[in-house]
């Protein structure tokens, strides 16, 4: 028999104010009891809704008020190892507002603000995402670049590994939405740690940004030319790079994933490694208009044409996607097509959504598969 949930025990014993306060003090929220997760709100409200980003569940779930109290709760079944970002929508006096869960200290930040985070049974923030005092830090240098292809000046940052030496040769990783990867996915810390653990080699990373990503990242010829014909030669002249496909990787998430893949498609064989996270690979089986709207039209056109004539664009391609995002359908559909071209493809699913910490948590397996570090070679 399933043990009684904490919220049920409270209600059964009478949720008076003192017992409610003890309940709030003695639990961490949301309450994770096996696969049962109880979200709790305490305060004055007419109604409270859970707003989450799990594709497949109702986007808005109303919390139940404990009779004669200001305590609201909702219990959902959430599989183990899940990470769910959410907010509460509070309705009061005809107004409503989305707020972070005041009882939960776990937060994830992104360009739009912050969300509360549910970590279900078994999920732990990977140790390699946290600062390690023993990992020697690499450096970040500003990157300023005048692009003829894009017709203007672009800014970014260059990561150099801690023991950078001009006498060595390094792989190059080019990251779309670079500032967001640094800020919201902690990518510098991740690089420092993975290099320290010998799980990836010392590598040079170009973090690039776009002022108009929805246009430039949607299979844009000028963007592909900028990255391949301008940025790489410039960086090759400035740094000791391994000047061959096996030493070059493009990566990105969402539209950045489309930018990575479509750029490699325009220059097949040039980019020997691709890391694509939650790529926005919208397509149609009939017609040209995808349900996602006109922003995706160029993506749909590209993905449809690729599905019609798939080719190997790279040697190795790591693809990841959260099962709680709608794009899981598109990514699952693409993987067998990629695989059939002869590319080495690794596809990883996670119980997470379309967010930066999901992409952060997949960096270790992705980067170490594309660029295995010296771990297999070092025996001390």
């Amino acid at each position, binding site marked *: 028999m399933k043990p009684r949930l904490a919220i049920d025990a409270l209600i059964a014993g009478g949720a008076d104010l003192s017992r409610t306060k003890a309940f709030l003090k003695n639990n961490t929220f949301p309450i994770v009891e096996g696969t049962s997760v109880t979200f709790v709100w305490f305060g004055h409200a007419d109604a409270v809704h859970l707003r989450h980003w799990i594709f497949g569940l109702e986007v808005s779930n109303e919390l139940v008020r404990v009779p004669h109290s200001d305590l609201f709760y909702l219990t959902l079944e959430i599989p183990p190892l899940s990470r769910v970002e959410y907010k509460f929508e509070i309705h009061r006096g005809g107004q409503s507002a989305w707020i972070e869960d005041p009882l939960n200290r776990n937060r994830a930040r992104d360009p739009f603000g912050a969300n509360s985070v549910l970590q279900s049974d078994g999920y732990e923030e990977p140790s390699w995402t946290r600062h390690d005092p023993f990992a020697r830090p690499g450096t970040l240098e500003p990157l300023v670049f005048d692009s003829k292809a894009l017709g203007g000046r672009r800014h970014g940052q260059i990561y150099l590994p801690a023991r950078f030496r001009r*006498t060595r040769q390094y792989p190059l990783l080019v990251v779309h939405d670079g500032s967001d990867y640094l800020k919201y996915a902690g990518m510098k810390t991740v690089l420092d740690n993975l290099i320290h653990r010998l799980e990836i080699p010392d590598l040079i990373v170009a973090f690039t940004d776009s002022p108009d990503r929805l246009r430039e990242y949607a299979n844009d010829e000028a963007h592909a030319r900028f990255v391949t014909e301008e940025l790489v030669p410039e960086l090759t002249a400035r740094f000791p790079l391994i000047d061959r496909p096996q030493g070059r990787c493009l990566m990105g998430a969402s539209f950045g994933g489309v930018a990575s893949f479509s750029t490699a498609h325009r220059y097949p064989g040039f980019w020997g490694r691709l890391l694509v996270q939650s790529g926005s690979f919208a397509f149609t089986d009939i017609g040209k208009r995808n349900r996602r709207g006109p922003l995706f039209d160029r993506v749909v056109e590209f993905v449809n044409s690729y599905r019609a004539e798939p080719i190997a664009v790279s040697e190795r391609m790591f693809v990841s996607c959260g099962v709680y995002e709608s794009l899981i359908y598109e990514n699952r559909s693409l993987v067998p097509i990629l695989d059939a071209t002869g590319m080495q493809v690794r596809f990883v699913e996670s119980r997470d959504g379309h967010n930066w910490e999901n992409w952060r948590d997949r960096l270790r*397996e992705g980067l*170490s598969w594309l660029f*295995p570090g*010296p*771990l*297999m*070679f070092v*025996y*001390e």
Partner: protein
Amino acid sequence: MPAKSGSHRVARPASVRPERASTPPRRGTGFGGPPRTVVLLGSQRFDPSLGASVTKLRVEGRIALITAGWQERESEDEELSAHIGGNTINLRLHSRAEAVFRADPTFHAAHRERQELLRHKQDFYRIRLEHALEAARVIRQRAAPETIHEEEAASSIAALRELDARHLADCARLHREFEANWDVANRSAIAEQREEITEIMKDCDAVAIAGGHVATLVNRLSLFGIAPLMGGRIVFAWTAGAMAISDRVVLFHDDPPQGQGASEILDAGLGLVPGIVVLPQQEERIHLDRTDRIRIMARRFAPARCLALPARSRITWAPKRGTLRPPSVGTEGEVLPRASSGTLSSPDGVLELLEDGGHGLVGTSKEEL
């Protein structure tokens, strides 16, 4: 004992009872024949045992250090030197190679090109290995009569052995062609370094080869023709050092971050300790309870014996009628001193797990494959 490791400095142990090496130590001997004695040790990072081994074999002369596996940190050997009494000299093989590359850029470019070819071969060999292992896994899961499964298991192992043999042959061919095309030993920049090393070695009674990056180590040992210079001397080698002086360097890790790995041959080693595959840091790299994987490894490399070298382990080779004698596994004595053993058996092989004192794990196969 890597440079700047967390290991504490350990004074030369006084309580270890010295014993005779197979022949008494002699200063300034020539270089003919095999090493006088070879001692393989487990990791020296946190609880070094090298000093005790040096004492036990009564090494009194100078010890040549090889720390090329530490790459740019090669010179950070103070802790290691102090641990074995301080009478040491570092052969500086890594920095000598850098000097050669600077002095002879044509050779450097050719060397890089050869390394690039080797990387390609390694990559394609690995792709074939992964598919062969996957095929073996799929076949194992199919329902079939036991006799068929036994035949198929043997076929799977034979396929792996064929891939291994072909890869080793390819590596050997690339090395031969490189040596022939570039007359490596006679290039002035290399010849000068080799002469210096030979002079240093004349005054050394022993060589201590540290771990680190095994590919770099094998490369530098080969570049400077170190193997013959160990003749008549006592050789101590641990972790990657022990791998580098075996017949074949096998890279292994059950749980690398990129997913379950396949053990793969890197290249031939120096062949000073024949008949074994050295597997150091077994505690961190091998799951002893995954008997399927261990069984495959044991059968794949047979008749060589897969020898795990956990921390504090020590195995000694002494010459017998002019050749090195392989270890007598599972017996007490010099090979695995004070070992108590437990045995994990499998239908096609025996895994002897030797614990306590000398400890080592040996996977071997009863079958001739």
